[in-house]
């Protein structure tokens, strides 16, 4: 079995629970001493067993938004050496801080995934995310921990990715499912033999369905593994996918609960931004069963988003962000619906019949205006469709929740 950190990954349940209890107790002390908002919420609450956790208050994404940027940081800014941003409810920005130790621990957690995927110091790792995906940093740290060779060049174009795969002969490719699918499609079109590449493992930044996984495995002639993470907690580094295909939460670092079907996480070791019972807005199942891989961390089966967050070309997107963009155009106030088609968002806007009939030029202008607003404000490409009010039309929050993960 490929296990990076035997002690913690295979820790017996009793010892793990003792460790979690100790870490939660220390976390409470730190939060009470260092974070005013947390102190006000926690009050005199104490934890004497993990069951007492249920008495502690939740932290919500809204709390993170309200305390933006540094209100929940537990250390002064001079100790925070890395800031990553992500998007919270209503598309409002969130900032996640990391201290030197946070980054070191992040690297070790990602190294667990890499080792579980069979990556060793002898491997050459290529990362292909497209600019701005902060997970790339986590994979870089992880690869550095296990001393694999990393091609630290983010190929933005599929041609360049293929050239890199041929020239540098990487054995491991870490990428998004979208990029991997593009790669397979282009290779098929050009009749490139995947066996001529030297890929052994493809690690995807998020879970995909079985068919996609099989298509990628066949198309790239490599084993395909997935990861699962959450921007506010850690992505990657929250859990690892083992050889048996289960996502094991790193329970020495994250205390996972399920509350009304929602994944709730407590960061046990994070120094800069510790989160107590953070409601992730993601549905999940947690199974604490024996796994053939020998790891004892709870097995997580992630579901969809609860807050209707979409993912378009790896960019998280909330419905009100779309409404805000539309409000800046002549389509302001009109009913609309959205869906995601590959890397683009399809926006269907309702317009009145007379507009349909009379002003084709007007519609073309409006299309251009909306497309350009989406590209400029959100960085995503939009397909705009106009439909008549007679179509049954309404926005459906959460309708595309499955897409989010």
């Amino acid at each position, binding site marked *: 079995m490929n296990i990076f950190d035997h002690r913690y990954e295979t820790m017996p349940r009793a010892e793990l629970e*003792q*460790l979690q209890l*100790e870490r939660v*107790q*220390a976390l409470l*002390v730190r939060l009470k*001493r260092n974070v005013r908002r947390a102190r006000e919420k926690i009050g005199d609450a104490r934890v004497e067993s993990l069951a007492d956790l249920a008495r502690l208050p939740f932290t919500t994404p809204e709390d993170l938004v309200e305390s933006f940027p540094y209100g929940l940081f537990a250390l002064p800014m001079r100790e925070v050496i890395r800031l990553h941003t992500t998007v919270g409810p209503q598309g409002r920005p969130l900032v996640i801080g990391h201290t030197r130790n946070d980054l*070191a621990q992040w690297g070790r957690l990602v190294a667990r995934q890499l080792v579980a995927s069979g990556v060793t110091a002898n491997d050459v790792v290529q990362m292909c995310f497209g600019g701005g995906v902060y997970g790339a940093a986590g994979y870089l740290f992880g690869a550095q921990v296990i001393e694999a060779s990393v091609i630290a060049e983010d190929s933005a174009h599929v041609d360049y990715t293929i050239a890199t795969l041929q020239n540098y002969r990487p054995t491991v490719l870490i990428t998004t499912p979208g990029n991997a699918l593009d790669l397979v499609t282009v290779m098929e079109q050009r009749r490139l033999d995947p066996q001529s590449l030297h890929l052994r493992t493809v690690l995807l930044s998020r879970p995909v369905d079985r068919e996609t996984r099989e298509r990628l495995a066949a198309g790239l002639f490599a084993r395909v593994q997935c990861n699962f993470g959450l921007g506010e907690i850690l992505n990657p580094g929250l859990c690892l996918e083992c050889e048996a295909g289960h996502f094991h939460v790193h329970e020495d670092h994250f205390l996972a609960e399920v509350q009304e079907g929602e994944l709730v996480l407590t960061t046990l070791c994070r120094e800069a931004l510790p989160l107590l019972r953070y409601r992730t807005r993601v549905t999940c199942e947690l199974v604490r069963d024996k796994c053939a891989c020998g790891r004892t961390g709870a097995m997580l089966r992630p579901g969809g988003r609860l807050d209707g967050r979409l993912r378009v070309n790896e960019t998280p997107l909330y419905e009100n962000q779309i409404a805000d963009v539309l409000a800046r155009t002549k389509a302001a106030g009109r009913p609309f619906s959205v869906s995601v088609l590959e890397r683009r968002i399809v926006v269907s806007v309702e317009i009145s019949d007379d507009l349909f009939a009379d002003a084709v030029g007007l519609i073309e202008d409006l299309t251009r205006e909306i497309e350009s607003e989406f590209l400029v404000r959100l960085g995503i490409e939009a397909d705009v469709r106009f439909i008549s009010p007679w179509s049954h039309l309404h926005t459906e929050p959460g309708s595309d929740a499955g897409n989010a993960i």
Partner: protein
Amino acid sequence: MLLQVKNLRCSHGNLEVVHGVSLHVRAGEIVGLLGANGAGKTSLLKSIIGLLPPRQGEIYIDGRPTCGQPAWRSISNATVLVPEGKMIFADLTVRENLLIGGYHNPDRALQLEVVLDRFPKLRERIHQLGGTLSGGEQQMLALGRALMARPKLLLLDEPSLGLAPLMVKEVFNEIRKMRDLGLTVLLVEQNVTGTLQVADRAYVMETGEITLEGEAADLLHNPEVKRAYLGKGGKETWL
């Protein structure tokens, strides 16, 4: 887990000094317990060994509950405390001090040779009175006396306290060697850098509560530890 402590509360009279502390030590580990004066470290150690009955909480040594047991029973759990300030018998010779440490050990004569081989300086001073040894030698004698009982779990209370820098280095080297003997050590210290260099993991205690737990190497770079104990930049060393 060789030692498991859960929600331990200790008090001196009505004054609670340890407010619900949990910690554990795995067999073969060296674990540091760091904290400033008055943090409650010694009280916690005394509770584990049985010198200070806890107000509340659970203590398990090798899986057996030992909470509330008298101190003299700790030897049957193969647990030995090296107290703060060495507490050697000043009027007894080095040999007598060591033999007292092995009072329960039927093989004490054999163990005496093992200990003297380990601390050659003690062999040189075997007939000297304990009180005439230097501070560092007295600390070695205290460590040797503890080893005479062939413990599994060794509780060390500030072994570097009041020693010259060179002796501090020697004491920490001896503690590091304990790992090779298969000993498990809970090391209570104020010398943060020294402790974090020999320990596998450590806890940081402040005003009766544990505020941090982690791998020793991580704690060495923890901003709170650096600020509280190592001064600006945290460049202090024990060498």
